[in-house]
């Protein structure tokens, strides 16, 4: 899961314009968050999942695995939400705890589950098809503060260096029985953390040297890859979002009626 982002470099959609993917995902998230119907949210979740698996060609197992992460949080919280104090029309009753699941609360929690899933799937669409550097480029174009973007891009790179470093220290400790007993484990972990800290400091100095030697002037300027807009994709995004809005209006109208 650590190398989760690698899928974005191998998907079928890697050469589509990142802005298209960004608009599709973020635009639909905004619209989908106004949904008040289970059917609509489920349809969004289902279509976007199809898009991810068949259009972006992300393996189904990979997608399901990545969905399982938010599900760990979603399912328990939805179960908790389904319970309320005992009323007359309850389906399941736990009298000794004075709790029950009513028809309304059950539907409510299922709705919440699918609404969250529809938004999560849209977010995954962006993450699984667009690399972080491209997403940050979009933020640059949207005139986000440069400092934040630079910090994010450096963090992205150095997370991997830090993990690599920590992993190497761990292996070297473990191969010398550093985690044999509980007492040793604590000691080794302490060494690992202090060592990691001093190595980070040292490396950051060295990296600064390497930046300096390439005429670093306080700003990270990169050449950005050129992408082409595709009319087909833009049309698709518009149609998808219009249908979504129509669905939203119809479901709301039905509620009123």
């Amino acid at each position, binding site marked *: 899961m650590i*190398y989760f982002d690698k899928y974005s470099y191998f998907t079928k959609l890697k050469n589509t314009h990142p802005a298209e993917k960004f608009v599709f995902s973020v635009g639909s998230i905004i619209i989908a968050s106004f949904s008040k119907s289970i059917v609509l949210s489920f349809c969004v979740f289902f279509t976007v999942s199809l898009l991810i698996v068949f259009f972006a060609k992300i393996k189904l197992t990979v997608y399901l695995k990545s969905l399982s992460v938010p599900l760990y949080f979603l399912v328990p919280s939805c179960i908790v939400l389904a319970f309320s104090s005992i009323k007359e029309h309850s389906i399941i009753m736990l009298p000794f705890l004075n709790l029950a699941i009513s028809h309304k609360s059950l539907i409510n929690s299922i709705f919440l589950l699918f609404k969250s899933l529809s938004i999560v799937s849209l977010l995954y669409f962006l993450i699984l098809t667009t690399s972080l550097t491209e997403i940050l480029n979009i933020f640059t174009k949207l005139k986000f503060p440069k400092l934040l973007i630079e910090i994010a*891009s450096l963090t992205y*790179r150095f997370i991997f260096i830090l993990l690599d470093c920590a992993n190497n220290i761990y292996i070297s400790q473990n191969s010398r029985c550093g985690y044999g007993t509980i007492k040793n484990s604590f000691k080794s972990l302490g060494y690992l953390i202090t060592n990691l800290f001093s190595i980070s400091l040292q490396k950051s100095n060295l990296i600064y040297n390497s930046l300096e030697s*390439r005429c670093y002037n306080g700003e990270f300027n990169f*050449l950005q890859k050129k992408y082409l807009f595709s009319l087909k994709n833009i049309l698709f995004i518009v149609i998808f979002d219009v249908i979504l809005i129509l669905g939203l209006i119809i479901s709301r109208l039905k509620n009123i009626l």
Partner: protein
Amino acid sequence: MNCNNIIELKNISFQYPDEAFSLENISLQIKKGEKIVILGENGAGKSTLLLLLNGILKPQHGDLLFYDKKLNFSQKELFQLRKTVQLVFQDPEIQIFSGSVYEEVSFGPMNLSLPLDVVKNRVEKSLQTLDILHLKDKPVHLLSFGQKKLVCFASILAMQSEIVIFDEPTASLDQRHIDLVLNFMEYLSTNEKTIVITTHDIDFAYSFATKIVLIKDGKIIKTGSPQEIFFDNDILQKINIKKPLILEIFEKLNKGDIINNAPKNKEELFKIIEELL
């Protein structure tokens, strides 16, 4: 006389703030088109010397002459120096800071404030020269060590600097990548770049260098042509360096005028052996 020096170090001394290590009284001239190899044990001060050449470290004493003009270490002068002198670090992990190969290679040229299409040309040409154009959209953390090294070379090549400095370019690489590195050196030297290398590969140093610098405990012990250095048995012993295999074989074969007829590379040695047979 020495008007073709690009960089000259004049009696330079440098000490790290924690006084852990110092370079003393370093004098070195780098002329256009030279291929300089710096030899010395681990911790002798090779890497520190390279950082001095790039203006990253500022010496406490002595002068750094850049095109015969004393460098005052102002931002403007340092920019000019770094435009001329590029440094490939030993560890690619510390040189690569961007998430994507394409961005990494474009970082240096972008800092030179060149027009965008010039930058694009340079990036693509240098990726092509190193035959890693297929890696351009790959994330850096999924590359192998050898590939990362090649990306570093590409990012330096894109700077099109006069002098290229390598800190142990062949360290911990496999044979295929070592060959690629050596080819790259040849490519640079045919393109009339000035090259400064630190290495522990004596055979390579002997056949490649036009000038060898021996360094020990922060001092330059001797500077000279490969022949001058490698026939000086006393100094080799002092600095714990072996003789290149080619020279050892040659010395065993011939007892005449060794210094002038010494073979430069394997092919020349084979020719001499064939003549003897």
